[in-house]
C-alpha cells in the first residue's frame, strides 16, 4: 500500500470512521441496556446482556480507533480504487426508489421499472433483450406466486399486482 493510501489522524481514514461508528453503536447499546434495567447477577434483567455487549463493543471499537490513529488506515479513496463505484451507487439508488414505490404502486408497477433500470444501468443489456426480461420475469414470478401459490403481493393504490 502506498503512503498516500495509508493515513493516520485524517478525516479520510476509513478505519477511523469504522471504529467511530462502532463506538457510537456501542454507546447506544450500553444506554439501551441501562434503560431496560440490568437486574442483579443472580437474576439478570432484560438489559443485562445488551449492556455488557455494548461495553465490549466500545472496547473493541476503541481498539480499532487506536490502531487506526497509531498505525494508520486506508483512505476511502484507496478502498474504491479501480472500482466502478458509480455502478453500485446506481443500484442502491434504484433499490431505494423501489422500496419507496413498492407499497404505493404495488409489486408489478414497481418491479418492472426496477428490472429495466438494473438491466440498463450497469453494463447495459440491449433494449430488445432488456424490455422482454424486465416484463416477463416479474410477470412470471407474479403469476406463480399469485395464481399458483395464492400469495398476496402488494397491489398499491392502483390495485395492480
Amino acid at each position, binding site marked *: 500500500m502506498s503512503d498516500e493510501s495509508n493515513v493516520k489522524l485524517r478525516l479520510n481514514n476509513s478505519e477511523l470512521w469504522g471504529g467511530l461508528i462502532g463506538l457510537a453503536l456501542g454507546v447506544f447499546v450500553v444506554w439501551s441496556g441501562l434503560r431496560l434495567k440490568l437486574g442483579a447477577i*443472580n437474576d439478570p434483567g432484560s438489559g443485562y446482556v*445488551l449492556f455488557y*455487549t455494548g461495553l465490549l463493543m466500545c472496547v*473493541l471499537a476503541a481498539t480499532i480507533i487506536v490502531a487506526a490513529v497509531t498505525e494508520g488506515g486506508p483512505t476511502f479513496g484507496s478502498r474504491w480504487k479501480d472500482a466502478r463505484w458509480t455502478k453500485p451507487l446506481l443500484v*442502491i439508488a434504484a433499490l431505494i426508489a423501489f422500496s419507496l414505490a413498492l407499497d404505493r404502486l404495488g409489486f408489478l408497477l414497481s418491479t418492472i421499472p426496477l428490472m429495466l433500470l438494473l438491466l440498463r444501468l450497469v453494463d447495459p443489456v440491449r433494449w430488445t433483450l432488456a424490455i422482454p426480461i424486465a416484463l416477463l420475469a416479474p410477470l412470471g414470478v407474479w403469476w406463480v*406466486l399469485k395464481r399458483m401459490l395464492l400469495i398476496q403481493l402488494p397491489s398499491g393504490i392502483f390495485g395492480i399486482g
Partner: protein
Amino acid sequence: METLLNVGQGFGVALMPVNLLYCFIGVFIGTLVGVLPGIGPISAMSLLLPITLSGTPESGIIMMAGIYYGSMYGGSTTSILVNIPGEAASVVTCIDGHQMAKQGRAGPALGISALGSFIAGTFALIALMLVAPGLASVAIAFGPAEYFSLMVLGLVVLTFLTQGSMAKALLMACIGIVLGLIGLDSITAMPRLTFGRLELIDGIGLVPVVMGLFGVAEVLINTEKLIKRDVINAKITHLLPNKADWKASAGPIGRGTILGFFLGILPGGGSVISSFASYALEKRLSKTPERFGNGAIEGVAGPESANNAAAGGAFIPLMTLGIPPNVVMALLLGAFIVHGVQPGPLMITQNPGLFWGIVASMYIGNVMLLVLNLPLIGMWVQLLKLPYNILFPLIILFTIIGVYCSSNNVFDVYVMIAFGVIGYFMRKIGYEPAPLVLAFVLGPMMENNLRKSLILSQGDLWTFVERPISAVCLAIAVVLLVGPLLPSFRKKRELVALEEGA
C-alpha cells in the same frame, strides 16, 4: 443392528416420492448456485426457506441440506473451467483445477472432483450416522453453562478464522448479538430496541438479514467490476480419471475426507477452512510440491474431498447439540425452527424419522449429484456463459420475492435493502458479515443460556469454570482470543483466515 434399522427407517422416509423430488430440487439448485459465481448456498437457502413452509419438515430440510452439499459439487465446475470460484469453498480448486483445464485435462479435473466429493460425502454420512447418536446421548447432560460456553467458542473460532482484524470480526459478532436480541425478551416479555415499531416486536427476520448481507451486498460488490469469464471452450472429454490419476489422488482424497470431516464438526469451522487446510497439507506432503499451482491433480482431489466431508461433518453439532457451527447451518437451524422442530440431543430419539430421513436423503443426494455433475457437465458449462449483467437483476428480483414470501411483509424488503447497503459498505471497509450472521442466530440462545445459568448458580460466575466441558470451551476461546497477540500465532491465523465464513 439398531443403526441398520434406523437407516432402513431413514430410507423409508427419503425414498418417498415427494422427498425424492425435494432432494432432487435441492441438489439441482445447489449445483446451480455452486456453478454461478456471485450467488452462494447462503443466498439460495435463504431464498428458498419460505418455499419449504408448504411441505413437511422432512421435505424442507432435505431440500435445504441438498442445496448446501450440492453447492460444494457445483463450485468446483466454475473453479476448474472459468477460474472463478463458484462459492468460497472452491477458491483453492481454481489454483490447480484451472491449470489442468488449460492443459486440456478439464475432464479428469472435473471427474476427480466429483468422484472425490462423492467418496468424501459418503464417508461423512457414515461417520455422521455413527457419531451423532452417541454425541446426542452425551449432550443430554449439557446444562445452560455448557451451551453458553460452546456458543462462545463457536463465535470466537469464526472470528479467529475471519480474514482481517480480529477486533473487527468480534465487533461484528457483538452487533450480531444485539440485532438478535431485538424484539420481546423471552423471559420478561419486555420489548427491546423496537423503537415503537410493531414489525420489530418479533425481532428482525433471519432471511432479510442474510439476503441483504450476502445476496444484495454480493451483487453490489460484483457490479463494481467487469466480470470477465475465461470459459474453457474445448469439448470436455475423458471425465473418468485414469489409473495414474487415481493413484495420485487416492491419498489426498482419504486425507482430505478425514481432515474435512473433523474441521467441519468444529464450531466456527467449515468447508472453506477445510479445503485450504487440505491443499496446504497435500503440498507439504508432496515429494514434488513445485507441481502445485501448475495443474497437480492432488490439489483438486484433496480440497474438493475436504469441503464435502466438512459439509457432512457440520451437521453433527447442529443435529446433536442444536448449535449451528457456521452460517449455513444457522440457516438450517432457522428452517428447523420454522417447522417447529428444535434440533438438539433429543431430536434423534423424538424425531427419528426426520433425523434418519435427512441422513438417508444425503446418500441419495450424493448419487444424484454424481449424475448431475458428470454426464450433465455440458449443461452447466452452457450456464456459465450467461452474462452477469442479465443474471444480477434476476438475483435481485428473486431476493425481493424470497424475502417478501418469508413473511408477507413489505417491511422485510426494506430491512433486506438496508442490510444490503450496510453489508456493501461493511465489506468495502473490511468488516466481514459472517460473524454477524452467526452471532445473530446464536445471540438469543446465548443470552437465554447465560441468564439461566446465572439464575441456577445464584449469580456464581465460577459455574462456567467448574463444569469441565464449559471450562475447556472457554479455555480454547481465551487461547484463540489472546493468541493473535503473539506474532507467530498471528501469522498462522493469517494463513488460515477465510474470506467468508461459510
